[in-house]
């Protein structure tokens, strides 16, 4: 990152800064030491949970990230829920009506949605629901004239609910509908495919034949026996697609001007704020690793056949 043009020091001090001021600032921030020293210092600090200070705001990077992370979490969680509902529903219907019209329609839908650029979908939603129909807000997490709830979890929807601030709660929900739909649709396509494949496989299993032979009503066969097994891999998919989800969240935040980590990353890049950019990327990679690990654990939990 140090090779790109654009000096953040000069950007910080303004056009009137003299050479002296620039080199003094550089020394103060420790940016004039050899690159290798800076790197090892960074790693050392990292192990102590110190990601350095943002060049633009002078506050700790961890603080900035903690401030913006909850909004990304809010977006991601909502998106996963919508994706799970849409995906599992269409996948199961598809499997139950295999090779009939509903199945083909659902598969085409999944294919189509999978190929959509997420930022274009967001833009289209904004145009249709925001501009043309004027029914939903399209920017930010809350209208400016509404009382903000205090920062408890950082997720505006949750905080407003906890503090009983109903106007804020409904308003923030309104703001999140489109972003949630945007990112949820993207993920639902993959979930739909996997759910369908697993459901078909589960329905062909011996125990299903056995249950039918026993005389169990078809609905019980479907829901109690086959569905449960088909659900498990969906959890894994969410874990594996987490990288895709984060990327989509980043773009969605940019489109809807939500102040989450994605927007922070983009503005940090534009401001040439190295520590902040690096910090966010480090956190991203830690997140992906953490989620992968958690998914493995959750899977072992859900499937009694797996023992570690």
């Amino acid at each position: 990152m140090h090779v790109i043009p654009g000096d953040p020091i000069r950007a910080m001090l303004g056009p009137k800064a003299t050479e002296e001021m620039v080199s003094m600032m550089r020394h103060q921030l420790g940016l004039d030491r050899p690159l290798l020293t800076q790197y090892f210092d960074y790693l050392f600090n990292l192990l102590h949970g110190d990601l350095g200070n943002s060049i633009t705001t002078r506050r700790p990077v961890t603080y900035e990230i903690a401030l913006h992370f909850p909004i990304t979490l809010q977006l991601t969680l909502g998106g996963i829920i919508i994706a799970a509902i849409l995906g599992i529903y269409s996948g199961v219907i598809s499997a139950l009506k295999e090779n009939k019209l509903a199945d083909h329609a659902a598969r085409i839908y999944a294919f189509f949605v999978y190929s959509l650029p997420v930022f274009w979908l967001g833009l289209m939603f904004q145009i249709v629901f925001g501009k043309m129909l004027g029914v939903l807000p399209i920017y930010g997490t809350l209208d400016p004239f509404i009382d903000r709830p205090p920062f408890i979890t950082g997720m505006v929807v949750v905080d407003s609910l906890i503090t009983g601030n109903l106007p804020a709660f409904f308003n923030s929900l309104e703001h999140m509908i489109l972003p949630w739909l945007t990112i949820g649709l993207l993920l639902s396509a993959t979930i739909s495919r996997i759910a369908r494949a697993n459901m078909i496989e589960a329905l062909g299993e011996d125990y299903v034949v056995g249950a039918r032979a026993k005389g169990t009503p078809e609905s019980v066969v479907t829901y109690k026996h086959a569905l449960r097994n088909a659900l498990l891999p969906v959890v894994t998919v969410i874990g594996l697609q987490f990288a895709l989800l984060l990327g989509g969240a980043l773009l969605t935040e940019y489109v809807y001007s939500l102040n989450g980590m994605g927007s922070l990353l983009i503005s940090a890049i534009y401001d040439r704020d190295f520590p902040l950019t690096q910090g966010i990327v480090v956190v991203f990679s830690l997140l992906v690793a953490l989620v992968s690990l958690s998914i493995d654990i959750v899977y072992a939990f859900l499937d009694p056949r797996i023992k570690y």
Partner: protein
Amino acid sequence: MFSEIGRKFKQSTKSDRVLVSVGLVLVVGVILLGVFASYVSPHGPYDMGENRLAPPSGQNLLGTDYLGRDILSRIAYGTRISLLVAALAASVSLVLGAGLGLFSGYFGGHLDRVIGLMMDALYSFPVIVLAIMMAVMLGPGVTNTAIGVGIALTPSYYRVTRSLVLSVKERGFIEGVRAIGAGDLYTMGHHILPNCLPSLAVLASFNMAEGIISVAGLGFIGLGVQQPTPEWGADLKIGRDVLAYGAWWVSLFPGLMILVMVLGVNMLSEGANALFKLGVRRR
């Protein structure tokens, strides 16, 4: 080889055939649009007009943007840029990924472990974040975007190539060839590589879709191809800027092009994957 393709085609399921056919039509259609852009466009992509932010009309079939440029012309010429950058990125990632995978799988040992570690780290990243990082390091512009996205897409080629190399090694004829005295490079190039080609081709088409979206995504954020060069993503950025004016046509059409192209590529690669029973997994 073509008779084999024909045979596989007849043996395939109907849905696979539909996938490949429709996909092929879409992809070829878009490519032709790019090739014959000058015949399709009534104006040039850089020609500014008096008619700013005009909705679709007889004069400008798809409307104009805030500089009075014809949208139809821009997306037609934009096809060339978008496809070129995506193809370049695909080539970079193919050569790098397959090359590294070849060496890694063939020689094994410490080299394999080190490269593998780097690739795993890259692989777990969202492609768009990697692409953004690359764009930051290299700067904006056509070639840099191609290189950046290319590097971001490398890990999947690495993985596929490496596992193919390992499975070829299992089959033992590598030892035979080397016993006769074949050198390392010759073995890799002449014996191992041809086995990898079909799977790599399908993977290339999967990644082409991702490449197109990544390039457009970078353009949308403003880190990729820059104005005034016509590129679908960069033009979507304009669409976002003029959102407040209700100019829906500026956003709709470039995005539609991306959708059509990506849909076509996805259908083609899914169909081909199933058709030739290659079992290549997308990320």
